[in-house]
């Protein structure tokens, strides 16, 4: 068992090291997991390269997903020496199309299927059948229901992200105050997991009152519109904090306060990472802020792990990629400390719509990104 854990640690460290900048230790979810992680033997999938990998993408519907998609392509380009073909399909958020996409990929004799499932449940039957055909499956960002449907799942923990940001907000308010929750897309498993985890935390603080919970579809425009309506109904001065699971909608919430005439020093504490605009707003206006990116670099890690599977190396059943905890100066709390301070992390020279934690180096620009993959 000890050997297995050490191997998992080595694999996790190797893969997370690819994409991390500041917190370079093992993922906290690995360190603090009270149980044991399963190690999967992959010798049955070992093949001579070069390999044909099929990547079934769920969607490119928002900025995060676009950056994630670029990360997968970037990694495929990085490892192109090991790849004969890298085939890509995109389901446009439609799980039924994704099932067909996967069938089309299988028909092209892929050695491994890498998949970002459009929903956590709907892909289970086709992935189970894929595994039974002897084609290993690596899922990324969302896992599917049954363990037999995939070899390994690559993620950054939604629950850890939400627990840490919610704890930061509750402790910043000294356990007292009226807050608004702005989760992402209703029904999407990352949004629901984060919301559930955040509520678990707030339930520990009886003095915290949740004024309203509104889904935002991870849209800055929706975040602004929804928060504007809440401000109009409740009054800006009565809202003590905003928990957003991402800066995509969190930035819209901050703008709603600014539009309502709230001065910089009266904007309530906010959470939400990912979007550079959010970091810029927090830096410019100086309100208490905690940003944790659901790092799109999980896409990069997933390609590395997929190649490990085909090389016959043991891989963890679940690989958590590190995230950074970014906190504005002077606003660390008893439980939540900064990996990096806001002033050091914000990318003032990059555009507002830049997604942080991409892992593709300083020269990455989503507007000009392009790779020519073998297919």
């Amino acid at each position, binding site marked *: 068992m000890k050997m297995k854990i050490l191997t998992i640690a080595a694999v996790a460290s190797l893969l997370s090291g690819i994409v991390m900048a500041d917190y370079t230790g093992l993922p906290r979810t690995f360190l603090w997991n009270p149980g044991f992680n399963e190690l999967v033997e992959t010798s049955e999938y070992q093949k001579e390269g070069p390999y044909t990998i099929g990547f079934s993408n769920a969607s490119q519907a928002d900025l995060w997903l676009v950056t994630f998609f670029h990360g997968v392509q970037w990694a495929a380009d990085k490892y192109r020496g090991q790849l004969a073909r890298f085939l890509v399909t995109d389901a446009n958020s439609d799980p*039924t199309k994704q099932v067909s996409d996967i069938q089309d990929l299988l028909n092209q004799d892929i050695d491994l299927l890498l998949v970002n499932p459009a929903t956590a449940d709907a892909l*289970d039957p086709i992935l189970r059948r894929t595994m039974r055909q002897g084609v290993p499956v690596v899922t990324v960002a969302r896992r599917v229901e049954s363990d037999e449907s995939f070899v390994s799942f690559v993620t950054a923990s939604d629950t850890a992200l939400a627990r840490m940001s919610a704890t930061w907000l509750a402790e910043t308010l000294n356990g007292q105050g009226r807050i608004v929750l702005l989760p992402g897309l209703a029904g999407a498993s990352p949004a629901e997991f984060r919301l559930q985890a955040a509520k678990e935390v707030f339930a520990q603080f009886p003095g915290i009152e949740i004024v309203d919970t509104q889904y935002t579809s991870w849209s800055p425009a929706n975040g602004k519109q929804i928060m504007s309506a809440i401000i109009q109904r409740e009054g800006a001065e009565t809202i003590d904090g905003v928990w957003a699971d991402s800066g995509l909608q969190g930035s819209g919430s901050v703008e709603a306060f600014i539009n309502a005439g709230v001065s910089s020093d009266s904007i309530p504490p906010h959470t939400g990472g990912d979007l550079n605009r959010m970091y810029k707003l927090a830096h410019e206006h100086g309100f208490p802020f905690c940003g944790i990116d659901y790092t799109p670099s999980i896409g990069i890690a997933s390609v590395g792990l997929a190649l490990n599977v085909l090389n016959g190396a043991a891989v963890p059943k679940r690989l958590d990629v590190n995230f950074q905890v970014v906190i504005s100066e002077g606003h660390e709390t008893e439980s939540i400390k900064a990996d990096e301070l806001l002033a050091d992390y914000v990318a003032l020279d990059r555009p507002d719509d830049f997604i942080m934690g991409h892992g593709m180096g300083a020269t990455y620009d989503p507007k000009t990104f392009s790779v020519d993959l073998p297919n």
Partner: protein
Amino acid sequence: MKWYSKMSRRIGNSLRRLHLDPSLLVVFVLLVIVLIAGFALSDRFGTVRNLMNVLEQSAALGFVSLGQSLVVLVGGIDLSVGAVVTASAVLMAAVVDSNPELMIPIIIVVLAFGTLIGYLNGYLTLKTGVHPLIVTIGTASVLNGLVLLYTLQPTGGVPFWFEEFAYGRIGPLPIAGVIMLICFAAVWYLLKYTTLGRSIYAVGGDEEAARLTGINSKRTSLFAYSACGFFVALAGAYYVSRTGVGDPRLGEPITLASITPVIVGGLLLGGGKGNVLGTLLGVFLISLLNNLLNYMNISTFIQWVVQGLIILFAVSIYASKVKKL
């Protein structure tokens, strides 16, 4: 366009000799083009394995488009098909999840549910005189709201054996694809050889004239809407079989998708003219096109562009040929 006119005349004559509707010409030509391109561009495209996969994948679009065709033929349109697919799927998965022994009864219940919603759409359209586009959007909104009130996330489950509906094979033939072809054959026969079928064309062509000739136009329209609901619910069942859950957002893309094969297949959106074989060819065209573009590793966004261009091309051809047909 001279080359096209010449070719279309030749193929049209050939189709007439085969007693087939010339309105199938455009979709037939497009289908041939896609097939030729597929054979030329990929050595895996033309394999039996792939073509059977496409037949399997086209089942849901086929069921829904077949229902849509019947409604369009009586001069209507049904924009609630996506919502009915979703509601049927969620109903089936939610009920069966805790009671697997109810799998067979729930199939009947779900098909009856779809038929009832279709009937309601027809009834409200006839009763209120409001355009079916508005009525069915209203129905869709109610159903979507109820489903999302019940669940925001995929829910429920079905026994493993029910997956055979979506993934099972009889020899090389996919079960779902075969059922879809049987449904199309049955509706084609009904439209071509029965009084009810001729009534559907008559009501869609000129409802008042049909009424004056003794056709019960209301009953005919109600039949078309109800049958549409039945086929749409069948698509919902197929999706549950394919994904194993009832997804509350499942049907969103299928509403507009179901109209594409109808238009490309040569059915007149005003009603009274067209052939469900055209819809079937339209379903194959869209499914093969998506398959081919996947094989070519082409972006989904380009797939949308190509689909849109095909619709525009087909509509422009039909518009110029309406008087000749």
